[in-house]
């Protein structure tokens, strides 16, 4: 038996010498960079491709999914009022042919308003209650209509779908239910540049309708003050999707100066009984 031996194996032959934490930091850093760059590329490509979809096709896609509820007769007055403002703005915002805006009132104590696919705009009671005049309301609606006019919802949806799908395929998962995940009637997140473009376009539309920027520029001042007052406790969905930094307000005021938009006329007040309509 002396010819058989089992010498003690040398440590570290079958295992790597690299420290697991160092390996982790290296791999995690590289994968994070790869995913961020990929997400950016997927997002940009998706948004660009989606912007090529004709508007009528966008409407058809949105109709495949859950439609907004029918108008409650109790809120017919506020619905008619909102539609009258939207109609006035439509005539002054040079919307492309065939583009129609559908406004939907939601009687919930939520400070929110958003535009989504198919020309649908949702506005909530919580936000209407804090608006000081009709011009501010018109500016809010014009801002959301500008998103639709500039095709921001389909671009944002395209971006979301491309990022979700691209990253899933990159990580080895796949799911063919692309549109189901996108949530076509849910709130889409727009970039800061999209928000600024919608501000400018909306302000011009409001100015054409009322011949004054009074009330319109105040809207963002009012909302900004509320946001600052609430501080970090602010969980309003509107502020989370519409970042109201001072630069954005300054840019808007720059548009007023550059285009010499007048504020001679006072803002139009809200109609009598407005609070009872909500």
């Amino acid at each position, binding site marked *: *038996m002396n010819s058989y031996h*089992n010498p003690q194996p040398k440590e570290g032959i079958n295992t790597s010498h690299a420290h*697991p934490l160092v*390996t982790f930091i290296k*791999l995690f850093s590289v994968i994070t960079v790869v995913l961020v760059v990929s997400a950016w590329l997927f997002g940009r490509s998706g948004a660009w491709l989606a912007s090529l979809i004709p508007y009528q096709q966008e409407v058809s896609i949105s109709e495949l999914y859950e439609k907004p509820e029918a108008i409650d007769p109790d809120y017919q007055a506020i619905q008619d009022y909102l539609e009258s403002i939207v109609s006035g703005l439509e005539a002054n915002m040079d919307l492309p042919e065939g583009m129609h805006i559908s406004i939907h009132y939601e009687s919930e104590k939520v400070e929110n308003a958003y535009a989504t696919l198919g020309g649908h705009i949702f506005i909530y009671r919580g936000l209407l209650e804090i608006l000081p005049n009709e011009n501010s309301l018109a500016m809010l609606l014009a801002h959301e209509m500008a998103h639709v006019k500039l095709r921001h919802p389909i671009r944002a949806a395209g971006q979301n779908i491309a990022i979700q799908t691209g990253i899933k395929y990159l990580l080895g998962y796949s799911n063919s239910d692309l549109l189901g995940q996108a949530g076509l009637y849910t709130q889409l997140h727009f970039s800061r540049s999209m928000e600024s473009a919608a501000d400018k376009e909306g302000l011009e539309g409001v100015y054409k309708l009322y011949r004054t920027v009074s009330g319109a520029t105040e809207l963002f001042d009012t909302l900004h003050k509320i946001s600052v007052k609430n501080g970090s406790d602010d969980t309003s969905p509107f502020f989370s999707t519409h970042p109201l930094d001072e630069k954005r307000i300054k840019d808007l005021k720059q548009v007023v100066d550059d285009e010499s938009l007048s504020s001679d006329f006072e803002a139009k007040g809200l109609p009598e009984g407005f609070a009872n309509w909500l």
Partner: protein
Amino acid sequence: MSGGSFQLIYVIGLLIVAYLIGSYREKRHYQSIIKREHALNSLPAVNLKTAPKGHFQHELVMGNVTISVDYFKRFLALLHAFFGGPITSYETLLDRSRREALLRMKEMAKEKHAALVLNVKYETVSIFKGSGKSIGSVEVLAYGTALIPSSQAVASNVATTTQ
């Protein structure tokens, strides 16, 4: 705190705890393995199939072990899988499993007063797939033929019978 931030903190916390506990347990296991290997080096286990000359009783001996990998190493393996190459986080898992299985086989052979274990083989299988089908635990079986000198075999049988 938003749900996303909470999830991130939860995952980071789990990774830290898993790394600390996993590293400590691995270190302890290696210490035990090295100590027992030194003690059992006098009993050779080889993969030769031919028995040396002499009178021996032949018996099957085996050692089996199941070891789980910690959450940190599983996470690290996912990162490795993205880029390819050696999955270094699983190397110690398999190294420990094989050495532990061999040790258990030798301990069984030693109980039988074997002088040598021939034809040693390993079987390795993953018995639990974690989330994302990543390997969670491995089972390693080491087995071979113990050569027990005839005189020792008689002694061993007597001891077994009288127990």
